[in-house]
């Protein structure tokens, strides 16, 4: 997609006509996720590092945090935006929160989640600078967060809450985002998933889950600076007008109460044993909702079966 330069007499193209040697997965090619194409940040070869005085060996693809985990040195790191569960190869590292900063002899302060492990590297997790950076950055995350845990659907299963508790945050330096006049309205248009952007830490996990794992191409990052936010690739203002199929993967990966399954929005619950996106969202919640007989939004119906009336599209 090229930038539009209409109205200019001799406008230049924005994209050079040179070879792009990368193989393109055909489906995701035209997704506009709004995010940069990061290089592969994993190490190219196996390496041996010293972490807080201990010798550690890690394999190919490793970033520093893998070495920290080997010796349990990641305990002191919030590493808030780092996603270390299934699909790690398709989700992250986004490396936006910078609450995983460590000190290295070779490169000074670096984010451990996204810095390649290098042979011979000396890493310290507890230098004054690294601790200061992690602490300030965690407080900066909280400064833009509507910290109303008691009424939040992720209370008790929230990674930001956990991080703040583990880091002994009592009074965040910069306060929290508590100006009600500035709150973005909660998007409750979808019967399945609620979006409260006032709790979003812009970790991008939902965007990657939606585009790279589910290959649905619904969510994206939009805007810049203070207006950066989660939005929809089809330009919709609300979830219900997006092409969402309500698979629920975004809510599963969201570390905070920003994306929550509607049933949990106000429930101070802990995750149910056996909870999966399959059994919780697609079937159970959708069943008793008469406005929309299947979990796909009308826009998704439109997109997939253009000739059909709204709501009649099969969910396949």
């Amino acid at each position, binding site marked *: *997609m*090229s*930038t539009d*330069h209409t109205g*200019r*007499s*001799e*406008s*230049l*193209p*924005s*994209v*050079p*006509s*040179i*070879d*792009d*040697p*990368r193989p393109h997965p055909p489906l995701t090619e035209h997704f*506009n996720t*709004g*995010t*940069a*194409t*990061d*290089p*592969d*940040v994993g190490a190219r070869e196996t390496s041996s590092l010293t972490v807080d005085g201990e010798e550690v060996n890690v394999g190919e693809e490793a970033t520093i945090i893998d070495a920290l985990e080997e010796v349990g040195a990641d305990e002191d790191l919030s590493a808030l935006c780092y996603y270390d569960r299934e699909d790690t190869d398709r989700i992250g*590292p986004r*490396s*936006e*929160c*910078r609450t995983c*900063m460590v000190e290295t002899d070779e490169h*000074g*302060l670096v*984010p451990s989640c*996204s*810095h*390649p492990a290098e042979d011979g590297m000396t890493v310290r997790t507890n230098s004054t*600078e690294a601790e*200061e*950076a992690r602490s*300030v*950055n965690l407080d*900066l*995350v909280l*400064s*833009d967060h509507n910290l109303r845990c008691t009424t939040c659907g992720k209370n008790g299963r929230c990674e930001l809450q956990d991080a703040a508790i583990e880091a002994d945050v009592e009074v965040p*330096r*910069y306060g929290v985002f508590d100006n009600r006049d500035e709150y973005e309205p909660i998007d409750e248009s979808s019967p399945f998933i609620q979006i409260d952007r006032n709790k979003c*830490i*812009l970790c991008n996990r939902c965007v990657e889950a939606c585009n790279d794992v589910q290959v649905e191409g619904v969510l994206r*990052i939009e*805007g*810049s*600076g*203070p*207006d*950066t936010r989660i939005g929809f690739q089809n330009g919709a203002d609300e979830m219900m007008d997006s092409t969402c199929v309500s698979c629920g993967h975004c809510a599963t990966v969201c570390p905070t109460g920003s994306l929550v399954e509607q049933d949990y929005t106000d429930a101070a619950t802990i995750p149910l044993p056996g909870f999966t996106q399959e059994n919780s969202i697609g079937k159970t919640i959708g069943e008793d909702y008469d406005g929309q007989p299947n979990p796909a939004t009308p826009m998704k119906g439109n997109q997939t079966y253009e000739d059909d009336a709204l709501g009649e599209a099969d969910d396949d």
Partner: protein
Amino acid sequence: MVGTEAATTPAIRVAVGSAEYDRAAAVLEAAREAATDVRVVETGPTGAAALAPVVLATADDRTTVHANVSPDRARELVETLDDGELATDDAHAVVESDEGVSMAETGPLAIGQRRALARCGWAAPAALDESLAERTRDEPDDLREAVAGAGLLGRGRGDGHTDESIAEGWATARESDGETVVVVNGNESDPAVDGDRLLLESRPAEVLDGALAVAAAVEATDVVVYLNEDDELAAQRVREAVESVDADGTGIDVVAGPDRYIAGEMTMALEAMEGADRLEARLRPPGPSEVGLYGRPTVVHTPRTLAQIRAFAAAPDEFETSAADPGSRLLTVTGDGVAGPTTVELATDTALAEAVASSEYKMACVGGRFGGITRSLDVPASAPALTGARLGTEGGIELFDGATCALEFAGSRAKFAREKNCGRCVPCREGSKQLVDLLRDVYEGQFQPSELRELSRVVAESSTCEFGQAAPRPVTTAIDTFEREIAAHAEGRCPSGVCTETN
């Protein structure tokens, strides 16, 4: 037009740059209409906006430099030259030269040295005297070894190797898999840092030749020139230069990105070129020299870096190669007491003060949008000296007089950071908001220098790209330099008398 400047024919040169475009174009037209025998050459700007439109008249190894020329005056100058005369009386300068290397003994054109700038305002933009690319194609090792031996550093925030070894970047690109691309990053949206635009408008053939030489040295298959979509004159002249330059099979593409400050950051430049509909920085390492445009190894250089490489290759003996940062730096001087933006070239061992005509300023912001605030310009123009003095290496010196408040100025730059960052990383996106808030607190009676410094440290050291890494500098250096002035605001007093109304 290429390389055919017989010194013998009398010539009139009209310097046409984007800043003075309409006025200078009218002068050019008048000169062309009046000319019968004299050759009239359209050149690029000289770098001294206050003198524009500039006309040079050359005859018999002598050149007169005329400033602020009107179309009528241009006609007269042509007619005088037609009679074999030079109008020396009212000339801004008279130079005993027909090479344009140094164009004046006084005034802005006499400041510093003119090596990279030697032919700005003198030669037709598409003209090229000597091709470094050709030489390098024959002996690619020569340029690589010479640049490595001299330890040349990248110039400008948009370079892939700002203040770092160019040669190391080339070596990395050569070692990386894939066909290498050379990107000329000419998208600098900050009008107070004008060196790249000047080179693109005045010496596009040299910029291209430099890029093609680098391409030969790193065995790149493509050169992409990336411009600012608003720099129409630069685009036009670069395209004309592409027509006349000998690329010897290397592909040359000219493209433009948005007129936004972040679009000049090296990885956001790559994102823009790959057609991203939203710009944000890429993680690094690995940087562009390993994984760049479309994943290919990419050597990113600013026009300033390329001009430096060419100037070095043309006269290696004039470079102090034992210096930590040999060569010269282009500096644009703007602000209070400066008649018009003036881009000059200083040898890196020369003090910044040389670039500035007046000494009547309260403070200067050195190093572009996120430069450092200082009272003294007695700092050499080399990267280590500037960094040591906590100033920026981006080639800009903005001067401010007594009617500027250091707190208000630092606040305005912090606000720029808050509004214009790409939004990707927490230290920059959220840190810049808090920086603005902490500065606003000063007006409410709370000046917390250690909190400001702590935050600034973390933003500078944990942000992803050069934007956030540089963003707190105006604030920290304002505190370093004007701590008492800032503290006075907490007591409801602005010593400069600027902030009283907003209080």
